[in-house]
């Protein structure tokens, strides 16, 4: 169960090698979380992620999960929920893709969309159903500021996150009053493996800062969390910039 501050005792991370996912798990294990499920494709990275959390004292289990294979989601996630209540699901998988490359190879672009959006639709719905049946729990979804407005530099990734974000908002409304808390997290540029080698955007943040913001959002039962918080103001201004002007902005 969650405690008064929304801290879960059991956590399921979809995308078990995600840096933000693991930073969040580490933070929560230091508080109340005792059981962590890491869902992902079997890999040495997944094993070492599990080992790292075990060292902190958590009971860590892994489950085979592939965002690109929605037909297997029901079985994989069903197995996890059959073992007992999950207090928090963190949907943390996603790929950035390579905009220039993907524009030239539509099938690779589709892969980005399928991972970030389609995979989240199926696993998100399955988890939402399970949480609703148990009458409690938080579903925390990692979206992105990139989903707020299409940018020339990454609109394939951005559009997939836009879909994910809209989906999550709707799911949150659908689950309102069911005891299940749905939270969209919109980080800006996060310094991580995913963005290694890219030119850093203003207001860049780190996985740890995102994890900290998630913990605060759980405590306040927030529906939307921006990381850093000032992005809420920045983006609400940028959203209203006319397109001819927006195109020329160095964002």
């Amino acid at each position, binding site marked *: *169960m*969650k*405690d*008064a*501050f*929304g*801290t879960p*005792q059991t956590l399921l991370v979809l995308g078990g090698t995600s840096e933000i996912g693991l930073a969040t798990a580490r933070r929560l294990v230091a*508080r*109340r979380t005792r059981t962590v499920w890491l869902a992902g494709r079997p890999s040495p990275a997944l094993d070492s992620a599990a080992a790292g959390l075990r060292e902190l004292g958590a009971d860590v289990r892994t489950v085979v999960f592939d965002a690109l294979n929605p037909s297997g989601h029901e079985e994989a996630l069903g197995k996890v929920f059959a073992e007992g*209540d999950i207090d928090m699901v963190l949907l943390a998988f996603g790929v950035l893709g390579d905009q220039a490359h993907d524009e030239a190879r539509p099938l690779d672009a589709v892969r980005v969309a399928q991972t970030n959006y389609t995979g989240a639709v199926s696993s998100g719905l399955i988890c939402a159903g399970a949480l*609703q*049946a*148990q*009458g*409690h729990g938080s579903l925390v979804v990692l979206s992105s500021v990139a989903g707020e407005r299409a940018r020339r530099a990454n609109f394939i990734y951005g559009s997939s996150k836009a879909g994910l974000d809209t989906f999550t908002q709707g799911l949150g409304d659908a689950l309102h*009053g*069911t*005891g*299940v808390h749905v939270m969209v997290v919109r980080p800006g540029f996060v310094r991580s493996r995913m963005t290694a080698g890219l030119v850093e955007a203003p207001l860049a943040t780190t996985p740890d800062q995102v994890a900290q913001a998630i913990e*605060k959002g759980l*405590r*306040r*039962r927030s529906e939307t969390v921006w990381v850093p918080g000032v992005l809420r103001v920045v983006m609400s201004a940028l959203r209203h910039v006319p397109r001819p002007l927006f195109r020329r902005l160095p964002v």
Partner: protein
Amino acid sequence: MSAECVPVAPAEHAAPTSPATPSGRDGDLPVPVTGWGRTAPSAALLVRPRTHEEAVAAVHRCGNRGTIARGLGRAYGDAAQNAGGAVLDTTGLDRIRTIDAEGGVVVCDAGVSLHRLMEVLLPLGWFVPVTPGTRYVTVGGAVGADIHGKNHHVSGSFSRHVLSLELLTADGEVRTVVPGTELFDATTGGMGLTGVVLSATVRLHPVETSLMSVDTERAGDLDDLMARLTAHDDRHRYSVAWIDLVARGAATGRAVLTRGEHAPLDALPARARRRPLEFRPRQFPPAPAFVPEGLLGRASVSLFNELWYRRAPRARRGQLQSIPAFFHPLDGVPHWNRVYGRSGFVQYQFVVGHGQEEALRTIVRRVARHGCPSFLAVLKRFGEGDPGWLSFPMPGWTLALDVPAGLPGLGPFLDGLDQVVADCGGRVYLAKDSRLRPELLSVMYPGLDRFRALRARLDPRGVFVSDLSRRLSL
């Protein structure tokens, strides 16, 4: 002499059930339910039986996520929530069955509130044996949490005055449970996890009037306060101290002590003597439904505490106060729990034994230093404990404080206090808990293993379950 009683229409509760509980709705759809602190909501089907038979049927039907009884929702944490299962709203079981007006014994259903009992019993010259800081708790809840009041040093907890219980257990049977048995000791303080209390027989306290004769004095700091409480507590039936946990430095732990007795008839002025047993609580408008977050910050609470301390007389004796004013000042404002805003609040109550005053000093100093904006902080001395396995009171000092749950860093801070409490053999109160580390529970409650073993035997399928029991593996 036992007189059949009483015209008990469905009780009119001036302060209704928690806003999370739509009263009287036998739902097909789960509704969100929270405790009085309004933290960690979870959804459950609400079932409101009107008779013992309906209660038995509801327990039979409750499904694989079980059920838990819920009265007026005054437990601060998650004791009366059951995520994904059923919550048995007992407020429909509201009959007072018999009153022995000469011997002072009442037999009533579990859903009858202490407020209702006072309305009915005071005119007959009887008072409930133990009342907490609110009248809006049910008799079933009083048994489940084994509640205590300002008279604990004299009268013990609620269960000491219970002569017998009717308990609906997981097998669907209704058992009569009397003091001195295992099931009684597991049920009193057992947080509803041994079964549903259907009715109770309770011994009452005789009173001549419905007024209290109250002495008030100020204590300049914590040591002064403890000395005053230690020296004179046994002279008064009721005793409690409001303590200013925001004050620092030399004023750390300054407090206002109030102690009282039921006023005898001859203490009343002539006018009041005509109706000495009148009971008419005043009501103020309810707290608004929406209160902005952070209203109770450090500055506002410091100001409140300063005024509250200054306003109290240095020493006053024999002031006449009504029962609501003395015992239940907050009951006058329905839904006062909303003033903490959306994130809700945490009430932290612990007890440490006599001889552990240093632990108490450490905690008070830490709270003052941390800057917890707590305007409701209460210190009192407990007397002898009662035999309930999970009953909270034990001889020593108990401190209760309210803190907004949204306060940054509050979780780790309270974990630190838990450690101090556990290290010196103390414990925190489960009826108020919403955040204890499960590992500490068996340290704080030595009777836990027996409790678990009895539950495993009595309720092998886990019919009775709550968010509290899931969180702490009770």
